[in-house]
């Protein structure tokens, strides 16, 4: 095993180009477990801790530019207004110690369906900026997850920045685990209302081979909200709409049975979370309409 310690982003890209099998390590919260338990012995570890720009974020007009290594603690403390869904998701990540080290880049790099950030990124609408010595490109989040623990990255590419749309409406996020803290998701759900475009987006974690959106549910809800004039009249969403939305979210899930839970439970729980979050976000929208911080 070799330990590569690039001092700059350019050096990191060069190292990754030279050693495409090199495994990037930032927070270390995934890869070090695999090393400690002898599950993995990469030829090269590529340390990204010395690269300042990965730990920086910038709030722009439309988007937040979030460095891949910005720790979850920073997101939940500093970006609650701009990225409420992701801030809530960050709060559910493992433990304070892990939140101090891990960042969204790790979740994306590992691309585990159980990564806590994915549903929030899917719901908010994000683009992943990846780069190699060949240049950089933006991958829409919907195209990023390509299989179980697989993503759209080329072997020489590194994740640099995640561009997330600033919230223009309420967002929520929940995950189900069998412990009240420090737990891996049995399944997770994120919902974002986008009043400017009069759309909703969803994200489902740990209930399919990859993180997914419940697109049919979104389409149904978009139509139902439009049809009922809900965006304008701010009326309470009828229970039948909420139920149908929840059922469609459940139906979008394609989960498995494993030690953490049954497929049947996961599908059920996704529906409950979807219904509750629709209630929470819609109440927020109807109320101030502009109280965008996560409620928890």
């Amino acid at each position, binding site marked *: 095993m070799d330990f590569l310690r690039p001092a700059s982003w350019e050096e990191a890209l060069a190292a990754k180009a030279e050693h495409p099998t090199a495994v990037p390590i930032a927070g270390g*919260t995934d890869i070090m477990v695999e090393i400690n338990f002898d599950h993995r012995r990469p030829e090269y*570890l590529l340390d990204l801790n010395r690269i300042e720009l990965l730990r920086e974020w910038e709030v722009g007009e439309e988007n937040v530019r979030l460095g891949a290594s910005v720790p979850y603690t920073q997101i939940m403390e500093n970006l609650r207004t701009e990225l409420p869904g992701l801030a809530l998701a960050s709060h559910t990540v*493992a433990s304070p110690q*892990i939140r101090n080290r891990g960042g969204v880049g790790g979740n994306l790099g590992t691309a585990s369906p159980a990564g806590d950030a994915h549903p929030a990124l899917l719901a908010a609408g994000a683009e992943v900026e990846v780069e190699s010595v060949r240049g950089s490109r933006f991958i829409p989040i919907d195209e990023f997850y390509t299989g179980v623990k697989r993503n759209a990255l080329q072997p020489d590419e590194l994740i640099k920045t995640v561009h997330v749309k600033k919230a223009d409406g309420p967002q929520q996020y929940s995950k189900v685990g069998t412990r009240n803290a420090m737990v891996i998701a049995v399944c997770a759900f994120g919902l974002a209302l986008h009043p400017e475009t009069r759309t909703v987006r969803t994200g489902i974690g740990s209930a399919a081979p990859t993180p997914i959106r419940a697109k049919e549910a979104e389409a149904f809800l978009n139509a139902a909200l439009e049809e009922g004039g809900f965006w304008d009249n701010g009326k309470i969403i009828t229970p039948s709409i909420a139920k149908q939305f929840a059922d469609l979210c459940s139906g979008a899930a394609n989960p498995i049975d494993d030690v953490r839970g049954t497929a049947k439970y996961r599908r059920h729980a996704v529906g409950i979370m979807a219904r509750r979050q629709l209630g929470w976000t819609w109440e927020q929208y109807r109320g101030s309409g502009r109280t965008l911080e996560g409620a928890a």
Partner: protein
Amino acid sequence: MRVNFTVNGRPQEADDVWEGESLLYVLRERMGLPGSKNACEQGECGSCTVRLDGVPVCSCLVAAGQVEGREVVTVEGLAEFAKDRAEHSGCAAGTCGTSLDAAKRWEAKPGQDSQTGEGVELSPIQQAFIDAGAVQCGFCTPGLLVAADEMLERNPSPTDADIREALSGNLCRCTGYEKILDAVRLAAARQERQGEAV
């Protein structure tokens, strides 16, 4: 590979480090600082918690090579760290590291003290853990102390829910946590009284 970093204010060097070694292993097996504990090595118990540039992290999940040039505080340096902080009150986390003089005085002392250590200077949180009966087997204690000390630095008057949240990454199997809560409340109360006295 070789790794240089500062531990409890004192520069340290480790040689022939295997690239897959964790900071925890280097502290425990190469630097004679076994206070940080190896209970799970997967970031699920917090017993290896140290401060890395002021931030509490699981040292089992930090690759040794990532610590090059950085500052680490372990339970062995906690009393000194807390004392320094009290003397330079108001300084932010991570910037109130050990002074150069203190660093020179500090020595690793694995297993050196055969006494109970009565008379040894402890940080408020360490003393509170003893007084409240928060220590049983003690294996979780070092990590809890580092985490609780850092919480009290940020949040000197925590609610019970705050304490629970801040310590939710530290497992304890002996105590049922009640006396750990007592200890943190006690340390906070004593700190407050001390603050009023100044």
